[in-house]
Each structure stands twice: as structure tokens, then as C-alpha cells.
């Protein structure tokens, strides 16, 4: 497993996403080549993870001193499992409707991107809040 801990501030977004994309390449090297995540796979996982992190930085720690965020990356033989943990505000993702793309929205697309690009999206509110994301390759 790869685990990254960092302060819940937007400038750390890039650090976390670099780890996610580099991890996808490692999975390819370790897997021996038969089954390796593609560039498209990595792009989609990075996109989803980036939106989840934005939400924690912007909504989760709104009016709070930014706490630590933890990203855990685990590769099963044909699947990536990502866990994102934070101690910010909890929310209920089931209450967030999909955006009306025809209306050309300028926000409210984050969860849609996460759900579209990942196979599994499961959120457990608590201390810490845990977002589990998984995707097969």
C-alpha cells in the first residue's frame, strides 16, 4: 500500500495527484505487464481523486482549520482501490443530484466526475470521513 498524508489545503492537490498517477505506473511495472493500467485509466482516476480532494479542501474544511488528509492507494491484481480520509465536515452524497449538462453548469460537476470515472464510490461519514473509490483495469 502507498499512503500519503498532507495538510488539507489546495496547494497540496498536485502532490497527491502526482502520487496517484505515479502509482498507476508502478502497478504496471509490478504487474509484470499482462494487465496494466492504461494512460486513460490513470487520467480518469486522477480526475476523480482531484475532485474528491477539492471538495475536502473547499467544503470539508470550510470554516475549520484545515486538518490532515490521508490518501491510501492499493492495487489488487486488476483493480485500484483508493481511500481518502479527512476530519472535516461530513456530507450526504446521496443528496447531491447530477448536474444538468445541457444547461452548461459552471459548478456542481465534481461528484458527477467521481461517479462517472470510478466503478465504486462509497462514502462513510465519521471521524475520519472515508471515501472509498475503486476502479478495475
Amino acid at each position: 500500500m502507498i499512503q500519503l498524508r498532507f495538510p488539507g489545503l489546495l496547494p497540496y492537490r498536485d502532490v497527491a495527484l502526482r502520487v496517484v498517477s505515479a502509482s498507476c505506473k508502478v502497478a504496471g511495472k509490478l504487474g509484470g505487464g499482462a494487465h496494466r493500467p492504461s494512460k486513460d485509466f490513470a487520467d480518469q482516476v486522477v480526475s476523480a481523486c482531484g475532485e474528491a480532494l477539492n471538495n475536502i479542501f473547499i467544503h470539508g474544511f470550510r470554516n475549520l482549520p484545515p486538518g490532515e488528509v490521508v490518501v491510501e492507494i492499493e492495487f489488487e491484481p486488476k483493480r485500484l482501490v483508493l481511500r481518502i480520509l479527512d476530519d472535516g465536515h461530513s456530507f450526504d452524497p446521496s443528496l447531491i443530484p447530477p448536474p444538468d449538462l445541457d444547461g452548461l453548469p459552471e459548478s456542481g460537476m465534481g461528484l458527477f466526475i467521481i461517479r462517472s470515472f470510478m466503478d465504486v464510490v462509497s462514502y462513510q461519514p465519521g471521524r475520519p470521513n472515508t471515501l472509498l473509490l475503486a476502479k478495475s483495469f
Partner: protein
Amino acid sequence: MTFSKTIQGDTIVFRIEGELDALTAPELRPALDEVANDKPKKVTLDLSSMRIIDSSGVGALVSLFKRVRSAGGDVTIVGLQGQPLAIFKLLRLDRVFALEA
């Protein structure tokens, strides 16, 4: 994220490189406002060196698009590839912006 603006005839060519995300989109807003306020006939967004975009970055570009269009102008995107292309396709923005390789 870095950006540059050049005028080519009746077209404003606006080039954005690197990361356009929740951290950097606010830095871009004033320059995009300026483009929109010029009420240009044609805007070309050169995204060939954009490494990554998120929903905040998309929001900034969609906002520009709406303002240029409502003033009778057109926005064309060139060079979209990699992660930004995946996001544009998912959000069906390839039907909104004129995309050119």
C-alpha cells in the same frame, strides 16, 4: 499554470499551460474577464500544453464561452489531449465548443 494572449487578425488566441484547477482558476479569471469584455468575434483556446483540468477550470472556461457567445462570438478549442480531453468528453463539452486537433 501559465497563460498568454495573442491577437491574430480578428481572433484572440488564449493559451493556457499546466494545471487549470481549483487552485489556479482564480488566477485566470481576471484575464478571461478581459477577453470577454473585448466582445471578440473569435476566441481560440490553445490547450495543447494543458496537463490537467478540474471542474473549477471547466467552470472558468464555460463562463468565458457563455459570455463570448452572448456577445455574438465563437470559441474554438485546439490541442485538447490527455486528461483534459477525457473531462471535456465526459461533460459533453465536445458538443459545445468547436474542438480542433
